């Protein structure tokens, strides 16, 4: 069964058709590099797959959940890293993560584990998110995704604002998740970096898939991690 199955999906943002009849089918453990010019609909596609948007028309099934009817059930199983960090500015790093862990009914130790995984130093744990640098903020946002061990990772420009070290860390995380059976969709301008991992590239233009192709990482099956 495909992880993502979209047919003729139209998604409206206000009255604007951000997706204009998009077709896409993804299988388990695929890593998809999403390309396309600004305004092509990449972010909208990720938000749709994350269960945040309702298709205006067409059929959309993600992880077996119909996006017209069962978005709430889907949202517990995906991890979305958007443009904005989706954190509460006035709460500290640990408080933010604890909130998300409790909401998802995860044990408290997952919080520390996730923060350690993202190599966030202990001094930062009690600092309000407002005071973090853009890169640190991004790491915390990523920690909220890692925390939940999602089956589908949706990463919107994940490399933006990260230093070299953090980028390598991110690639490592993605590779680990994929080997554990997760599916990943990455929207990125940083082709070279993401291509190493990608099994497929999908180019979106005008809210629909223009082209897609299998990549070397998939065919040669010796991914450089």
């Amino acid at each position, binding site marked *: 069964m495909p992880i993502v199955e979209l047919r003729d999906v139209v998604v409206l943002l206000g009255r604007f058709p951000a997706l204009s009849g998009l077709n896409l089918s993804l299988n388990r453990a695929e890593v998809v590099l999403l390309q396309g010019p600004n305004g092509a609909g990449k972010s909208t596609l990720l938000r749709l797959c994350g269960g945040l948007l309702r298709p205006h028309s067409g059929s959309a099934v993600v992880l077996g959940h119909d996006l017209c009817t069962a978005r709430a059930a889907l949202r517990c199983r995906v991890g979305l890293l958007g443009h904005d960090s989706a954190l*509460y500015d006035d709460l500290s790093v640990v408080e933010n993560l604890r909130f998300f862990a409790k909401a998802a009914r995860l044990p408290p130790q997952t919080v520390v584990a996730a923060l350690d995984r993202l190599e966030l130093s202990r001094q930062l744990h009690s600092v309000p998110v407002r005071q973090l640098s853009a890169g640190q903020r991004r790491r915390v946002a990523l920690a909220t995704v890692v925390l939940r061990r999602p089956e589908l990772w949706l990463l919107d420009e994940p490399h933006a604002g990260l230093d070299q070290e953090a980028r390598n860390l991110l690639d490592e995380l993605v590779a680990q998740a994929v080997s554990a059976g997760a599916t990943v969709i990455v929207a990125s301008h940083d082709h070279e970096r993401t291509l190493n991992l990608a099994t497929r590239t999908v180019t979106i233009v005008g809210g629909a898939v223009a082209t897609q192709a299998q990549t070397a990482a998939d065919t040669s099956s010796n991914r450089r991690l």
Partner: protein
Amino acid sequence: MLADVWLVTNKDLRIEWRSRVTFNQVVPFALIVLVLFGFALDTNRAVLRAATSGVFWLTVLFVAVVAVTRSTMIEISDGARRALLLGGIEPVAIYFGKTLAIAIQLFGVELLMVGGVIFFFDATIASWPLLLATCVVATWCVAASGTLLGALVANVAARDTVLPILLLPVLAPVLIAASRAFDDALGVLVVDGWVWLGLLAAFGIVNATLGTLAYGTLLEEA
């Protein structure tokens, strides 16, 4: 479920404790409104005392608009509303959690305002139990309607103007009933304040029920 309610309440209160928006802005605002009413009505001590209940609850309504706006803004800024959705908390728990957080904050402001009317308006308390019970129940009513309408206007472009237009008429019965109950509690008017309290409770239950039913839909679609 209750744990989730407390999780959301705790989160909102903690954010308030850190940012002190309500404390630093809403409390002075409430006191200024009271004082201005004092200036406007000060020619006659009797008029001032007779008007105390109405002035008190009118001020609470204005404060409520500010508190609801703040509560909504917490979730809108930086995609946090998305975070709340992705978190996996039941919408009903979010609704009651946020309602409770607003109610606790408003109740705190009201206690300070009671001090304000005693000081500025020369109010005397005839019945503390009735006064406190009215504050609790009316505050719940205000918070329950406010949270619902806050979610309703969250994605409206002109939400800052639309919220008061919608919220204030809905809260008109709270203004009426709470003022009458206060009249009794302050010994201004011979009415049965507890009957009015019952009406407030009915209003609170009805609107919280509607909120329970509609909140999830609004969070998803509106």
